[in-house]
């Protein structure tokens, strides 16, 4: 029984049926907009969003009603993180966010 419990507990941790997606654009006015979403078309509004620089969180918030998040472009390298839970993280590096 105990073993079954662990299996079942494990079975629960990452059962999403969709894949997380995110793309980011440099708006050219010193801001960057990231748009999140899921492969099944469900909205990403309210999903946690982070900007990391050297491992530190420099900005965090939630995707808005249009599944978007706009932030001021930091100096240097950074990473935009779409965090929809375990197994559903998308990381976009600043080098991949072109104008």
């Amino acid at each position, binding site marked *: 029984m105990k*073993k*079954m*419990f662990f*299996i*079942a*507990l*494990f*079975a*629960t*941790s*990452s*059962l*999403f*049926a*969709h*894949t997380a*997606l*995110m*793309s980011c*654009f440099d*708006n*050219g*006015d010193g801001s960057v*907009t990231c*748009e999140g*979403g899921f*492969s*099944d*078309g*469900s*909205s*990403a*509004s*309210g*999903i946690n969003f982070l900007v990391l620089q050297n491992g530190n969180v420099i900005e965090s*918030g*939630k*995707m*808005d*009603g*249009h599944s*978007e998040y706009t932030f001021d472009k930091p100096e240097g390298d950074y990473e935009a993180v779409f965090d929809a839970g375990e*197994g559903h993280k998308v990381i*976009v*590096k600043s*080098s*991949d966010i*072109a*104008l």
Partner: protein
Amino acid sequence: MIKVALAGQPNCGKSTLFNLLSGLKQHIANYPGVTVEKKSGFVNFEGHDIEIVDLPGTYSFSSYSLEERVAKEFILDEDPDIIVNVVDASNIKRNLYLTFQLLEIGKPVVVVLNMMDVAKRRDIEIDLKKIKEMIGCPVIPASGAKKEGKEDILRAIIETSKASYTPFKINYEELEPYILEVENHIKTKSPKNSPRWLAIKALEGDKTIHEKFPETATIAQEKRLEFHEAYDKDPESFLAATRYDSADVIYHKSVVEKSLTKKTLTDHIDSIILNRWLSFPVLFLVVFLIYQFAIVYGYKVTDYTWPLLASFKNFIIAISPSPDFTKVPLITDFAIWMVNSANALLNYVPIFLILFALIAILEDVGYMPRMAFILDRVFKKYGLHGQSTLPLVLGGAFVGGCAVPGIMATRGIADERARMATILSVPYMNCLAKVPFYTLLLGAFFPEQMGLMMFFISTITIFIALIVSRLLTSTLLKTKETSPFVMELPPYHLPTIKGVLYRAVERVWIYIKEVGTIVLAVAVVLFVLLELPGLSKEQEAGYEKRSQALLEGFYAKASKTKYKDDLNSKQAVSDLINAYDDYRAKRMIISPEKAAQMDEKFKADFPKEFMFIKPSSEDKDAMSINRELRKLSRDRRSILQDIKNDKIESSLLGDIGRGLEPITKFAGFDWKINVAFLSSFAARESAVATLGTLYENNKADNMRAEEAMSKHSGYTPLHATAIIIFMLLTPPCIATMIVVKLQTGSYKWMLFAIFFPMSLGVIASSMLFTFGSIFSLSGVEALAVFYGLVVALAIILATIPQKRINWSGGVNLN
């Protein structure tokens, strides 16, 4: 053309041999009226055309399983010239029982001793010549796995077809006069078949024969009674005993098993796997590994396969008429809706491919029958069968699966009652597509206790299935035929890649074909129900005004730039915004490395628009257009969303949802939930999308659909628990129901499979909601109580013996 029927017991390697004999020229169809597959192959050997039909594997020829019925009907109706009996040489004793039944049919038989290599390895010596002399037919050694024996078998078939044939006859001693009487009666009825065989079958009480020859059936019934009165024996057991004795004689005269006392590798492995204490831990380990590979890694694979589906969707959007700002053509809406429905289904393909391949490996290795053996003890108590294991596992016991292949897999169950019970209980298993729905509700109402709630949800299903099966087998299914658990534990062997892939692909194909067609059909109906009657005149005018205002705003900003002449018409702005949205959608699924390449392509395809989609930083005017474009795109999406909400609210489906409110209010469901449930019946995934749409917040506040739902709907966690319980009990989708119809062969059972779980769901969730409210339980407490009750009920049912002990008395020594 020589027509050959290939017959043999399950696990004798018949399919491998069939593939070896017929090569690539195969034709696969169903036997008339049933889902049992009929495979035929065509070969030309030494100038002779041979058609080989693979009969379903059967242990005997005298019970009423679907397979046996089909095999018998084939012989009755299609009159094969020769029967090739495939015998597992390593398990010859039991296989010979079927051989005698086949010999009796009155057609020339060629016996193929398959798996000779295995027999040799196990030191089984078989005197082929002796067997040949004793049963009077060619006996050919072969090994399907090693591709040995093909030519010998084909040659024997041709020789047999030319040779003269004296009908084979077992002397049934005291039954003989009765056989003769029935034989005389049936003689004229079916000139194609041996009257003696038909007579024996009729006396055996064979339903297939009785249905075909009703007059003879009456006489045979009389004779059966007479025989019973004269000898105090039933003809069927008398016949069976005679055949077993005959098989035994052959075995003892021609087979020497030197290794009977020596332990084989299989015995060693079985001493662990079937060990009293270890069998269940091993079983759980296997289930856990399947879960890891199929579900956890399977989802990872979908990260790579998803872009394919997404580009398919983008392609469909590209070839559909593009929207005129906020006016989306109906055909485009429809195309996107259909692609979404198809994609939701296809996204599971990698998961199912892995899952089914692993299950095929377990079958090939020989673990599946052992799993059935281990679980039979438990399942029996609930009216199920060891063979119910595979359907339940495919359907999603513990790890999630799909009921469609699960129900398809029930056709191997010989016990009719257990087969029906399995068909009707598989839909309660964890349908993978239900999971996103649970996650949505749990995320909204139980973010803290998500793990615990998921544990309840994923383990309760098997208990519910067991209870339902027990209830049905002791009531509605009580009178169905049962048969004892005869399952052989074949020696372990290594699976072949080809065999595993073939079966995995075959099952996935069933899933795509069966589920796909139905999901698409239902999607069409739902689309119509959601689309009609559409927006009212006033609403339309309102939206027109809103979008006009947006456009005016855009023109005003654009007029301040040097591009004012390019962007002053609705057409131009529409084109621009469509190109912009298209770009963003495509960008979403492309890897960063390929982004530059994609930009080039867009530049070529949309020379005028691209400068605004991705403006250069030098061009300040283009930059400001880009800013406005982003805003416009967002505002347009808001309008489209509002239109969608208004449409659903006034749609026919919305009306139906509202119409159901008086009933569902006891479970706490309002019309929005009802609409979600109704639309989710096409494919479970759409429940999430529909709910998301219904609860989507118009204002751009930072809320996810689930948050919006928990804040704005006025729902409590207890509501959510009631919804979850209803969801657990309701059948997964229409496709499942169609498969129920196929496997039970009756619409009545299909309707039962729809309405029984639904009523159960409404009752359970209403009771839970009502009592939960009275005792002011939280959602988690309510589910825990429900879980406890279900588990307790399952355990109590197991302790009540299914068959009543209806005798008493004995020696009383006190």
